[in-house]
């Protein structure tokens, strides 16, 4: 570090190269910071829990052929009976949707019958008293529905149910003082109250999207068995028997009734596949960004190696002179390392500003979150280390320049 002043003086006379390396470090930092931030955000999403126990869980989509909305009831009942009797099946339920399915119902909810605007947005799951046991969500307060409380309804004519189980996030949003159990809520624009009889620890919405992130854990479970001919069966296999059930369950459904369509694509999936499909974009984005980061760091390192090699080549003579004047190998090595560090510091200083600026721009353009400064700090350290690593090879070569170079002309 003893050389800072003369190194700066020397750099002043190599402005172009210095600026180019600093600029490259700055741009790399800006992009890498934002990319790592995106990667981390995406990975956080991918790991987001649904509140269900996702092992031994699967789903089947089925649609009966040529049926009206009010004609599916008995057929679904027969299906459920067949599914629940399968040897590997622990429980099964017919739902309009389930977490991460990709499509579902959502509505506003009020706690005050006269309020004009809703207090919270939530998804609605319609199913019978087997929903909790099939999903294996944890009931933290109140009770489950009894089978005699479940009503059948055409999806176009769903009556306002008298009772509901809500997710804890929604309960806390509606009744922040924690008194939600037993309180009324008003679903949509109805005037009729629905009483909260149970609260589950956590239950995610069917969507993985920016717009649904605001209410990701707001869910209602309503004791209504829809009679529409299309439905989703959520099936919990007995531990370790998922593979068998994956084969047996669709076969059993076809056996019960042939006049149905189970889509060939995404019609029968384990929940692991459902999660994979739902987060495909997020995971892909994370992979893409990681690849971009790695290649980018590689390119930047290569650029530093290239330019420093050139500098070393250009300065062989003066390195020789320095050696003749008594510089040790270590002095030469530290000269180039220090030089790179100085350029690097300038680069990361500009880069940190660029990174923050770029993030602010992305925030306005793509509704992204604000960049945490931790990423910038990590990026700064990483790039400085990268620079030192990249400069090591040419600097070592420089340190091996013989002092005899000083006496050679050209």
């Amino acid at each position, binding site marked *: 570090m003893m050389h800072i002043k003369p190194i700066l003086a020397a750099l002043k006379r190599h402005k172009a190269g210095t600026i180019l390396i600093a600029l490259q470090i700055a741009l790399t930092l800006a992009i890498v910071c934002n990319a790592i931030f995106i990667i981390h955000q995406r990975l956080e999403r991918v790991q987001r829990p649904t509140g269900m126990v996702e092992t031994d869980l699967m789903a089947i989509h089925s649609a009966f052929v040529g049926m*009206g909305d009010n004609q599916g009831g008995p057929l679904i009942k027969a299906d459920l009976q067949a599914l629940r009797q399968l040897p590997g099946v622990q429980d099964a339920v017919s739902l309009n949707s389930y977490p991460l399915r990709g499509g579902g119902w959502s509505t506003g909810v009020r706690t005050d019958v006269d309020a004009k605007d809703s207090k919270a947005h939530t998804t609605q799951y319609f199913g019978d008293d087997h929903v909790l046991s099939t999903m294996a969500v944890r009931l933290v307060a109140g009770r489950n529905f009894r089978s005699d409380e479940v009503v059948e309804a055409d999806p*176009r004519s769903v009556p306002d149910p008298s009772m509901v189980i809500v997710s804890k996030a929604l309960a806390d949003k509606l009744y922040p003082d924690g008194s939600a159990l037993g309180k009324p809520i008003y679903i*949509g624009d109805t005037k009729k109250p629905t009483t909260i009889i149970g609260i589950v620890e956590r239950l995610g919405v069917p969507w993985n999207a920016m717009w649904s992130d605001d209410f990701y854990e707001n869910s209602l479970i309503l004791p209504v068995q829809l009679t529409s001919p299309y439905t989703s069966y959520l099936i919990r296999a007995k531990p370790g028997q998922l593979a068998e059930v994956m084969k047996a369950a669709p076969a059993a459904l076809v056996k019960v009734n042939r006049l149905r369509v189970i*889509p060939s694509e995404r019609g029968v999936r384990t929940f692991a596949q459902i999660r994979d499909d739902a987060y495909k974009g997020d995971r892909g984005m994370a992979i893409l960004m990681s690849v*971009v980061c790695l290649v980018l760091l590689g390119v*930047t390192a290569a*650029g530093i190696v290239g*330019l420093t090699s050139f500098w070393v080549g250009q300065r062989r003579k003066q390195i020789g002179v320095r050696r003749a004047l008594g510089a040790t190998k270590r002095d030469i090595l530290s000269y180039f390392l220090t030089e790179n560090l100085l350029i690097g510091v300038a680069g990361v200083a500009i880069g940190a500003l660029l990174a923050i600026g770029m993030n602010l721009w*992305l925030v306005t353009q793509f509704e992204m979150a604000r960049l945490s400064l931790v990423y910038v700090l990590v990026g700064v350290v990483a790039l400085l280390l990268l620079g030192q690593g990249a400069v090591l090879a040419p600097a070592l070569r420089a340190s091996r320049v013989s002092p005899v170079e000083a006496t050679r002309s050209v």
Partner: protein
Amino acid sequence: MFAYYLQLGLRSLRKNPLLTLLMVLAIGCGVAASMTTYSVFRATSNNPIPDKSSQLYVPQIDNWGPDASKDNKGEPPNAMTYTDAINLMRDKRAKRQTALYPAAISIVPTDPSMLPFRETSYAWYADAFAMFDIPFLYGHAWTADEDESHAAVAVIGKALNDKLFNGANSVGKNVSINGRDYRIVGVADKWNPEPVFYDVINTNGFDDPIEVFIPFTRAVELQTNTNGNNNCSHDPGKGWDSWIRSECVWLGFWAELPTTSEADAYRAYLNGYAAEQQRAGRFRWAPNTRLRNVTEWLDYQKVVPQEAKVSLMVSLGFLLICLVNTVGLLLAKFMRRSSEIGVRRALGAPRKEIYLQFLIEAAAVGLAGGVVGLLLTGLGVMGVSLVFEPDVARLAKLDVSLVLLTMLVAVLTTVLAAFYPTWRAAQVQPAWQLKSN
């Protein structure tokens, strides 16, 4: 002279294989990253119907009022009620028009060994076939009269015709849809506009081709559900009839208006219609309507996925970094030869010639970078399926235009990057380098 410089350039590149390799790889990576994401961007921002994209329009009518639209920058709902769609169809103010929705139907094969299955199906009016330029393999569209009479007719797609009839002409035969027989009047040839402009709302722009078309009038009569979205501002009440009379929006609507004056007239008509509804007491607000053509509609619906935009941005940044990198490396490469330049200048080479020599050398590097970039772009396009939904990913293709563009971008950016180093090289004084080291 060009050949001479190219030869000099190639020799100089061979002399410095490591530096050359670094440059070629840097350019290759940058170009490949940009091109890969560009291929997705291009696919998603494609004009699906170039001949008619400025003649086909989506009308929107605000039937929910300012309370609902205030959350959406004052925009009317992006789909239509049954009431408005039927009124617009009845008035027939456009050259052609259709209401449409994705019908939730299943096909029941006559072969008892085959299970029922689903295909992408739409219910719409006869006009739609001509409006959307749908080609026919056999037969033709159904008629306006058949719309009127709710006829049990259908047009099927080529893939479904292959599946059910082994590709034979099936016109006149029956197909069982939702358990009822429909007479096939036509078989549509492959028609797969991308993005799926006709129903952006339900597909986000990407879906399988339509295999079943049935008359809208018949689908509604049989209370065939929509496979798409249904949005209600208020509880529609119970049952099908109250639903289709409600203010729930669930229908797409297209009007063909060949000239701008016809489009203007249609705008005036929409406002007049909304004013009429206001007078009738249905709307308690001033007319709020929109009329967007295909391009404007796709833009408004943000069909280009956010992932594509973000990664395009990142890739452009990437290209910029590779450019800066190339400037540095070329600078190193060129300045290392300043003694050569000095001698050349001393031997009478004018600046212009130095410029030419080094720019040609840079172009050679760019060309090599382009070849590497092309290989990597090929890999990248394959890897796109990791990042994007398969519907989108399969659109990203390495075609001739992308190959040419890759090469062009590689050479152009490298030559662009070479300007500063070349300028520096040309500044070398004649023979100055001979005098001292």
